[in-house]
């Protein structure tokens, strides 16, 4: 053990001297990095080209840059080890606010938080909070219920599919609520659920979708990020099969087959967090974002509005108003993403 300490002593000295040196040098590059300026970073678990969960978050980051004049940085991370590494790197660089985009970032945020008290860490999903760590929780089940109502009204076969990336808690909660919505309209409808096993293999997504279509499914609710893009493709290749998008407004991805999207207005959610931090009013808590706060929405695809029975649209509108007023909550278990 003694030899180890001897071995490490020079390293320690080196470390301290670099620390002092670093402190002296910092005013020089204060302009380009952190310190006084407002700087915001985003860690996504997948590619921001998915037009969904990750793309929406990146849009939020861009809006923070454009509206609040923040310096921004983004990185795609794969493993819990990388979550922590990047949280620490941003903390060390003095970033004001760092988003970890998913519940899976919460342990890393809780662990890193105390080391960088001047940086606020926010995870989109999760429940852990501490002095400089908050979580945003999305009531994904609310608009999912409305999507279920629409799906059941449009389906002719009475067999409706759900396809997810992997079996994450918020995805499962969304599907459960979607099924409730389906059965609200048609108690005899069948809901089949499949998971692709990842979030980025569009080919595998397409295969899962085609397998469901072969079983008679004619409306698919997808929540699979980049892998979900293959599901839209499958619907385009099939006859009279519709898709419901999720996370971002995916109505434009495949306008001819997309009934609508279960949307998390991620940019709005990110902006509200950024404003809170910038104005110095940050308080650590779990921010529950739902239909009432305007962050969770069901958005019909205007191009396919005619494919949905008018009666169904009316039911959805009235349910939505009740949700906004807080007089109706889907009976499914509350999930968080």
């Amino acid at each position, binding site marked *: 053990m003694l030899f180890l300490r001897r071995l*490490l002593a020079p390293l*320690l000295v080196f470390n301290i001297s670099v620390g002092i040196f670093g402190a002296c040098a910092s005013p020089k590059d204060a302009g380009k990095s952190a310190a006084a300026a407002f700087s915001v*970073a985003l860690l996504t678990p997948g590619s921001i080209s998915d037009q969904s969960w990750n793309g929406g978050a990146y849009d939020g980051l861009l809006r923070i840059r454009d509206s609040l004049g923040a310096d921004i940085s983004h990185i795609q991370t794969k493993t*819990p*080890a990388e979550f922590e590494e990047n949280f620490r790197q941003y903390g060390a660089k003095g970033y004001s606010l760092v988003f970890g985009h998913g519940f*899976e970032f919460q342990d890393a945020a809780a662990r890193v938080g105390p080391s960088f008290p001047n940086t606020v860490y926010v995870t989109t999903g999760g429940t852990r909070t501490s002095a400089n760590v908050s979580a945003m929780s999305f009531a994904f089940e609310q608009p999912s219920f409305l999507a279920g109502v629409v799906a059941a009204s449009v389906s002719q076969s009475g067999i409706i599919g759900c396809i997810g990336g992997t079996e994450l808690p918020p995805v499962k909660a969304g599907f459960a609520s979607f099924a409730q919505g389906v059965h609200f309209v048609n108690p005899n409808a069948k809901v089949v659920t499949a998971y692709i096993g990842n979030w980025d293999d569009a080919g595998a997504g397409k295969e899962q979708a085609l397998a469901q279509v072969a079983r008679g499914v004619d409306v698919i609710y997808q929540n699979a990020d980049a892998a979900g893009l293959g599901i839209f493709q499958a619907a385009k290749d099939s006859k009279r099969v519709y898709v419901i998008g999720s996370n971002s407004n995916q109505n434009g991805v495949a306008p001819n087959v997309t009934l609508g999207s279960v949307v998390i207005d991620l940019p709005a959610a990110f902006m509200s967090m950024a404003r809170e931090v910038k104005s110095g009013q940050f308080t650590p808590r779990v921010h529950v974002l739902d239909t009432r706060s305007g962050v969770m929405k069901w958005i019909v695809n205007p191009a396919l509005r005619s494919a949905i029975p008018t009666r169904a649209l009316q039911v959805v509108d009235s349910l939505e108003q009740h949700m906004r007023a807080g007089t109706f909550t889907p009976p499914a278990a509350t999930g968080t993403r």
Partner: protein
Amino acid sequence: MRARLHSRWLVMGATIAGIFAAVIVILLIGGYDTSRALAALWDGAFGSSYAVLSATLVRATPLLFVGLAVGLAFRAGVLNIGAEGQLLAGATAAVAVGLAVGALPRVLALPLALGAGAAAGAAWSGIAGWLKLRFGVLEVISTLMLNFIATYLVSWLVRGPLQEPTRVYPQTIELSPAVQMPLLLTGHRVHLGLVLAIGLAGFTWWVLTQTAIGFRVRAVGAGAAAARSAGGIDPARTTALVFLASGALAGLGGASEATGVTFALYEGISPGYGYSAIAVALLARLHPLMIIVSALLFGALEAGAAAMQRDANVPSVLAAVVEAMIVLGVLAFNHARTRGRQA
């Protein structure tokens, strides 16, 4: 020996130059700000004590374990490409045992968890070894397939028997401090696993070059039939031993990662360290001490690639492209050399 070591440094130097050339070419093709990206690469890998002690060395640690595992196997002619699965088996066992023994003092609990990881890694590659020796199943196929089984097994375990008590998140609860690797420096992430890995590199080198067992391993690797007839060596026994030792090294790598970095079992605990390990071992031309250098190099590359994305907006998957190019480059180089020798 001296000349051979010399040539190893030469290959390493040429490869580093090649890496830089490759990175620059890719950056130019992608239309990125090359100087800014390279500055970020350097900064993220070696630019500060923080980058070295909390990023580069942390990433180099698992690469060193699995690099040794692959290097040892290849030396004996065992084409173990299942280090990923063995690493996952090791991480899983370390966490499972770690959760059970968390109440014990650290001097007992941590070695128990690490030992379980090594044993699980050995058992996992032992399956492939048994299949090979008993039925002649090619280990290239069996170890690769076992990777997928391990991946899905982890997915199931974190949703089943090992899931955290609220049953919401697909992960285990956090290991108690008694099962967490001591940090080498407070405030930095580099942990005791690095020292362990470097020690094992030295030990593997010693065994391979200085002991009878090591001689047998090299003899079987050079030619199993000749080793049997000329040296009176039992190739099957040596092969079995190598399978187990290689798996144990990879398993220990997983255990070190779980107890030193992630402190819990998740899906995707490894970003493919077991596959990068093949590049690590090949770049070092299977020399255990050179594997330390190449693991550091790859650790630096991955840490630097992350910084490139953070600071210069260059996708960090660039590192994977460069790694693949290194493997191809080293293979082509070796091929050219052996052809040269035959001529």
